[in-house]
């Protein structure tokens, strides 16, 4: 099973995305985001990015999703809409899950799948060996490069985060 772990995690990733894309109330959507974040961390961990995976948990789930959860709790309604509340949400959820399951079975059965580009069976998702990463892990080297050679990228992303906050405040000011 460990060779197929990335494939399984990717499938469950898509299913959790479907669970909040079928638009239940944001509280239930937040739960889907939580699961998606955890599984995303698992996928990144399987490719050797231990630091970034744990960053997902810390910053994304522990920071942003907590803020999202609190704001949703402030704006909640007495009867939030779950996945089985009305037929529309349930139908969207079932459609999404079915499409994902069919795709997964198709990938597992056939050797090659060509939708937009070629998948070589489950080859891209299967880890046969962790690879020789030398003395330093690639992911730590990438983060180091971001803060040394990639100063411009840090400036741009920092500025975008600041603008994100300013834009949200302007949009919700509402007078």
């Amino acid at each position, binding site marked *: 099973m460990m060779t197929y772990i990335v494939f399984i995690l990717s499938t469950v990733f898509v299913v959790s995305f479907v669970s909040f894309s079928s638009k239940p109330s944001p509280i239930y959507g937040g739960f889907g985001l939580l699961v998606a974040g955890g599984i995303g961390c698992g996928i990144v961990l399987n490719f050797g990015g231990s630091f970034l995976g744990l960053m997902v948990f810390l910053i994304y789930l522990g920071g942003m999703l907590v803020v999202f959860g609190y704001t949703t709790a402030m704006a909640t309604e007495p009867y939030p809409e779950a996945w089985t509340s009305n037929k529309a949400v349930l139908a969207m959820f079932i459609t999404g899950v079915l499409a994902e399951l069919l795709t997964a079975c198709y990938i597992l059965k056939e050797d090659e799948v060509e939708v*937009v580009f070629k998948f070589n069976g489950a080859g891209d998702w299967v880890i046969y060996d962790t690879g020789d990463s030398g003395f330093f892990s690639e992911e730590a080297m990438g983060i180091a490069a971001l803060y040394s050679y990639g100063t411009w*990228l840090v400036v*741009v*992303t920092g500025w*975008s985060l600041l603008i*994100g906050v*300013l*834009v949200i405040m*302007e*949009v919700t000011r509402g007078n």
Partner: protein
Amino acid sequence: MNPPIFIIIMLTVISGTMIVVTTSHWLLVWIGFEMNLLAIIPILMKKYNPRAMEAATKYFLTQAAASMILMMWIIINLLHSGQWTVLKDLNPMASIMMTTALAMKLGLAPFHFWVPEVTQGISMSSGLILLTWQKIAPLSILYQISSTINPNLILTMSILSVMIGGWGGLNQTQLRKIMAYSSIAHMGWMTAIMMYSPTMMILNLTIYIIMTLTTFMLFMHNSTTTTASLSQTWNKTPLITSLILVLMMSLGGLPPLSGFIPKWMIIQELTKNELIMMPTLLAMTALLNLYFYMRLTYTTALTMFPSNNSMKMKWRFECTKKMTFLPPLVVMSTMLLPLAPMLSILD
């Protein structure tokens, strides 16, 4: 809006586009598009009425979907070529996805449905930024990949855009929707020539931006948003009446005005590349555009539009709006045709 916040947000809109135009890394292209999108949302929502909120939401949703397709394309390009540099050798199958994403950002048919609705819901100055500055970034990326675009896709989209821009604008009385359909049609002309001579696309973009800037500024000067209100311009500011006449003829692409330069150059380049039916179709459907520009001209400058008598005797107040750079813009949007031989420097 609070002036320092407004300055910071405008700075981000400008730097987002500049990042897209000047970068050589595909990730920065995506980041630039997202910065641009995020920062322009409060500008679209300057007035806090539900119409503006709805317009800003529609704009955000369509542009975010286009950015997602762009990101998927960037990752597919990384998969195939193994590097992030902005070059023009794209995987031909995946360049369809790129063209689709950029067409959604530009408002080309069949992704044009958001343009009239968003332009109508926002204020005139926000609509100005939307229809001129926001076109620069996607067109610059299309310029960079222009040699590997699928010709069937781009020519279909451009012919459809010119047709829809023409027929869609016919039944409109709201000036912002007319300008939106005009923008769709001009985008169609620009993408038609992109495969054969991207320089002409830049020429068309420049002249289109100058003309649209002037048109919006004249509308803002009078605070008019409908044809009926524009038809009372003879009473408010008679000078603008004649300027609207000349400007609408220039937008329609009539010689001897500068709006004729891009159309002439585009038809010349297309016929040099042995396409005959396509420029014929483009020129004929551009006549539909000319019809509604002429309707604006007719009601503004050539007749006294029906109104009650009290609207024919207005107080003449001095206009307090600062329309900087308007006179040079008017001159540039109408009198550039004699400079057309200077285009030989492009060869």
